[in-house]
């Protein structure tokens, strides 16, 4: 199980990446500017034509929770990318030669990546009132739980892909091909339509959809328009299962010891 050296290593990795993140102003600016632009441009462009069936909700308000998830998704993709370069020549190599288990290395990396993702999401959430979600009416514990679980799940998935693929181009290719479509059909940009049962089925099998759904409920209340049918508890349970599965995958991947290059 987790021993004292493992806890030390988790703490070190966590602290290190947070310091690195906050020490690079360009990353902070990019982390904030990109979703704001995305939300503003796509949101405004779609606002004129988009009508949510059975609701008068405007598109900027509908799209906002989706962009929150996009922030988490991109942060998880980009922060776990460092696993590849750090593993063969870099800080992680020294950590791997240290006294902690591979599992601890995975946890440290995943926790730190999730923290960066949550910090970026928090920065973007400052704009929630502009989207029509007053900060005081937000269900913060639910929001934190949903975003933390999906962040851990995505970061662990990123770790596993990074470890197995082991090159930056391949990592990007896989992550972008896998995750961007998943995000698009998560209900982030448009709801599932009863006329497209296949799309609905994909959505129900898509963990990101449950994160979007829980985020909608946290921001707009239990009956928020666009949320999937079902309870918040079910959303969180699916997300917890997703996080547990990808964490297990990441630990399995990290235990494979590749040949030195």
């Amino acid at each position, binding site marked *: 199980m987790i021993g004292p050296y493992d806890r*030390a290593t988790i703490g070190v990795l966590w602290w290190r990446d947070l310091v690195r993140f906050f020490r690079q102003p360009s990353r902070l600016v990019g982390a904030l500017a990109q979703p704001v632009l995305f939300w503003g441009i796509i949101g405004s462009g779609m606002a004129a034509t988009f009508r949510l069936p059975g609701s008068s909700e405007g598109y900027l308000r509908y799209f906002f929770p989706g962009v929150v998830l996009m922030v988490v998704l991109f942060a998880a993709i980009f922060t776990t990318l460092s696993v590849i370069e750090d593993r063969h020549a870099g800080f992680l190599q020294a950590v791997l030669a240290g*006294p902690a288990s591979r599992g601890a290395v995975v946890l440290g990396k995943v926790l730190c990546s999730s923290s960066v993702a949550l910090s970026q999401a928090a920065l973007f959430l400052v704009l929630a009132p502009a989207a029509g979600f007053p900060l005081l009416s937000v269900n913060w514990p639910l929001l934190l739980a949903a975003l933390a679980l999906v962040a851990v799940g995505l970061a662990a998935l990123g770790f596993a892909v990074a470890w197995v693929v082991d090159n930056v181009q391949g990592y990007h290719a896989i992550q972008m091909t896998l995750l961007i479509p998943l995000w698009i059909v998560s209900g982030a940009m448009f709801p599932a339509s009863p006329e497209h049962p296949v799309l609905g089925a994909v959505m129900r099998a898509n963990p990101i959809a449950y994160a979007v759904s829980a985020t909608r409920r946290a921001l707009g209340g239990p009956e928020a328009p666009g949320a999937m049918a079902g309870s918040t508890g079910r959303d969180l349970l699916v997300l917890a299962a997703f996080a547990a599965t990808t964490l297990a995958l990441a630990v399995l991947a990290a235990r494979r010891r590749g040949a030195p290059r």
Partner: protein
Amino acid sequence: MPVPDGPARLSAEGLRFAYGDRVALDGVSFSIRAGEVFGFLGPNGAGKSTLFSILAGLLPASSGELFLDGRPLDPSSRTLRARMGVVFQEPSLDAKLTATENLRLGAALFRVPREEARRRTAELLAAAGLSDRARDPVGKLSGGMRRRLEIARALVHRPEVLLLDEPTTGLDALSFRRTWEALRELRGTGGATVVLTTHRPDEAAHCDRLAILSRGRVVAVETPESLLSRVAGDVVVVEASGAEGLAAEIAERFGVAARASGDAVSIERERGHELVPRLVEAFPDGRFRSVSVRRPSLADAFLHVAGEDLAAETRP
């Protein structure tokens, strides 16, 4: 210099490793005593990197065993790893963090108590001549400074074994000397046992004992002095094109052992200076680019013992 006697600190028996069909380590055994500076000398491709990865716990050997103070040291026994410090050939410091932060992170990984870590960090930075650069991001330090800081980080938890991969690769002469002074000092204070891999004769000369690694095997373990004494007298080096053919011709005409490597033929011989005029007269003008006589180096000793050139790249 005297080699410390005593029980084995780090030892191995029959380490093997293969990448598919390609055997990188073919039954490597050795026994390193506490307190000595021990080097694995071999050309690229001899299996040094694979051996280093196994010693560092990054790669499990296909078979064979590794022992620290007589206890088996396999990749799953991570806590024994706390007694080792590892310095990689590639930089493994965090360039975005300061020198101090890097050492503190290293200390935290090995659970050095905070106060102790603070004190050790200051001591090690001073010893590495980096006290005035303590707050600079590592990315702004020179190559030599970074190397000394890497070593300092590996020492921050007072390991009993310090493991280094090609420790002075890419360093200028001054940085090379300062790094080795620091490593020798470590030995002087009765600190860590130093284990390193290298392909450089000048680096190998600093070791107490050397294991000659050739094509995945240890073919000799001796002091540098003893290795050098295996080469008789002088080395006469003839630089010329077509070295292979020339070596055969020299061997035939003078009855000496001549080895070709690259664009040079080397001949080991007592009273080498007497051979030089005979060589020059025996061959037409312009056949040689240069002829020289020198004392044997560890590169010559390696060639003598392993039968291959230390500078060559071999694929086992």
